[in-house]
């Protein structure tokens, strides 16, 4: 009843915040804010051709991409925390980050070239490879016991990370490229990258959101959920598969960006939303907004030098999160 109308209100607020963020971020560049750049979203006329390229071929896709990646990571984190009933789970728990890194390292070092998308494609492949390896190792009979799955994720992650380190050690002059990739960022954003991940989002996000009742039931424990009609093992399988696709596509275009996927769902919970009907979409919107702002800071704060966005998310996000935690003094 009142929780429903409150949910609707929060929806509206978040949407307004996201749109305002896109508007404001469009005006930020080269260390300065320029309102005419923001307004150019509505009035194209006064722009010169070079300005138009900067604003619409470089800045806007980057803003959109950071929003979509932030949303995917946070949604994925929220879903996985719901499946595992564990607050420390992040979207990389299935070894996806190290798998993607290994794919990227392989692409960069081997010199394979399949066009513009070479590195993202290999990263995507590596991410999926690690996720399926974890499923395979974590499967017992027809079931996926959560502890085994978590441990398999940790094991595969360490193994792939070791291979990444080995690759870096042997990289020579390609090293800086590898380091940059593993730090994560949106330097080379383009509409093509947006198009690359959009299909995964368009399919994955609505289906994941539709699982809110199952995830709510998981709050009561797997046995209770099963008795209520949830086909627990089947649901887990589907959710893990969809989250893996979503996260793999996000990592493929942005590298490994930490913290957002772990923390944003908790932020939403700390703000009083535990019902997955709202928790999941709010996580997506808030996560997108957070990463959008983090990237705007990353590209403007030390202009003309750009920081990897992961540094910003960790540097500012961690203290803020700890502050919230202490202020609420409530269990996650």
């Amino acid at each position, binding site marked *: 009843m*009142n*929780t429903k109308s409150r949910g609707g209100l929060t929806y509206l607020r978040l949407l307004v915040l996201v749109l305002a963020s896109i508007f404001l971020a469009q005006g930020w560049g080269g260390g300065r804010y320029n309102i005419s750049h923001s307004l150019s979203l509505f009035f194209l006329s006064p722009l010169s051709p070079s300005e138009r390229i900067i604003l619409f071929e470089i800045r806007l896709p980057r803003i959109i991409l950071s929003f979509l990646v932030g949303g995917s990571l946070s949604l994925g984190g929220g879903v996985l925390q719901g499946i595992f009933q564990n607050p420390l789970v992040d979207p990389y728990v299935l070894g996806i980050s190290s798998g993607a890194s290994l794919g990227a390292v392989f692409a960069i070092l081997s010199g394979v070239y399949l066009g513009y998308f070479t590195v993202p494609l290999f990263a995507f492949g590596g991410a999926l490879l690690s996720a399926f390896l974890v499923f395979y190792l974590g499967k017992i009979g027809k079931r996926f016991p959560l502890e085994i799955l978590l441990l398999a994720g940790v094991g595969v992650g360490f193994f792939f990370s070791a291979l990444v380190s080995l690759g870096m050690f042997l990289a020579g002059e390609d090293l800086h490229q590898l380091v940059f990739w593993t730090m994560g960022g949106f330097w080379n954003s383009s509409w093509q990258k947006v198009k690359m991940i959009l299909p995964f989002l368009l399919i994955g996000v609505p289906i994941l959101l*539709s699982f809110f*009742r199952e995830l*709510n*039931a998981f*709050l*009561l*424990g797997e*046995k*209770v959920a*099963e*008795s*209520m*009609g*949830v*086909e627990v093992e089947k649901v887990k399988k589907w959710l893990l598969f969809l989250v893996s696709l979503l996260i793999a596509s996000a990592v493929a275009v942005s590298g490994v960006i930490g913290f957002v996927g772990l923390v944003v769902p908790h932020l939403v919970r700390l703000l009083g939303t*535990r*019902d997955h009907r709202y928790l999941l979409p709010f996580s997506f919107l808030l996560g997108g907004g957070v990463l959008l702002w983090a990237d705007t800071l990353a590209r403007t704060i030390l202009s003309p030098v750009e920081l990897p966005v992961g540094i910003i998310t960790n540097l500012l996000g961690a203290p803020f999160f700890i502050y919230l935690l202490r202020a609420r003094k*409530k*269990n996650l």
Partner: protein
Amino acid sequence: MKRYLEVENLSFSYAQRKILDKLTFGVDQGELVGAIGPNGAGKSTLLYLLAGLITPEGGEIVLGGERAKHLSRRRWSKKVAMVFQEIPPDLEIPSRELIAMGRFPHLGRWQREGEIDEEKITWAMEVTSTSSFSDRMFSELSGGEKQRVMIARALAQEPELLLLDEPTSHLDILHQLEIMEILLQLRREGVAIVAVFHDLNLVSQFCDKTLLLKEGKLLSFGKVEEVMKAEEVEKLLQVEFLETIHPFSLRPFFMPLQKINNNPSRGRVHLICGGGSGSRFMKELLEAGFSLSLGVVNQLDSDEELARKLGIPLVQEKPFSLFSSSVVEEAYQLAKKADFIVVVPTYWGRGNLPNLDLAERLVKEGKIVLILEEVLNPRFDYTEGKAQEKLKKIIEEGGKVVKDLSTYLSASS
């Protein structure tokens, strides 16, 4: 009422161990069945099988005429709901939302909750009296309130069969009775209920039928009055019980008897008692390491019942009858073997006066006869002073008046 649940030759094994062995029974609509059994008897496993959470090794479950193994998870959950033993950890969810989760099997993936759902949730909350705290967080509720919310959640599924695994085990007596009231209400509405209980008396007071489960086998199943007998329950739980009739519900009521240190080493005591006065002393003396004998007592006297239960040798007379001389002679033979004769406070009438003659005879033969001081109180005497005279005589012959039996006995040995 119509038969709802049919269980035939149901078996289940885990890790090569037989947990349930060929159970067969049936439950009608509007019938409340209480399952009892020692730990590890397979009670929870039975509920899990009925809820479809585990697959039987053999046998058949039929729910409302449908063979359960063909049911989808969702269909099964529309027929059967379960309340688990563990209450979930503290959840920051308003109780009403938690209860509403029970609508899951009735809602399609892309379907919104509608009016029917609202109605069913309201009904579930009314039956369980949870409406008053519908907006409060589950974590803030008391144990009894939490359990009622969990039951309401199960009811939101609109089950035809409700399963409950020890729904009262964490609750105090008031809240236990609240839960039982809810079950009785559901029973009147035609829901079939199978619940596991630890408390025999909750089952004997409230349930229609009982299912006694031991080591995975059905020891017996049937109406409470027919199945719940002391011997049967003792066989089930390996504890001795005193069975009486609950004065109000007229159902059987069971009192467990304490396990008593049974290696008498300090001699034998013959008790002269009756009308329930002896029970306190039986316990005290047995615990102190004495063996006992008893008599004469009338049949159906509560002292007689307890002594028989405890296996104490005794001499008995027909109910409400004067002790005959042959019976008193028998008691004399028994009492002669004792080291002490103890007379405890009991009402004296014409019928049991021969017990005092017995004591007199024994004290004259040099036996140690102890009379509790309280016995001398004239209020116990309904023989116009005859009992008082006899007691005086016994004391003259050497009977000792003691204030407190245990101090005397511990000093004497």
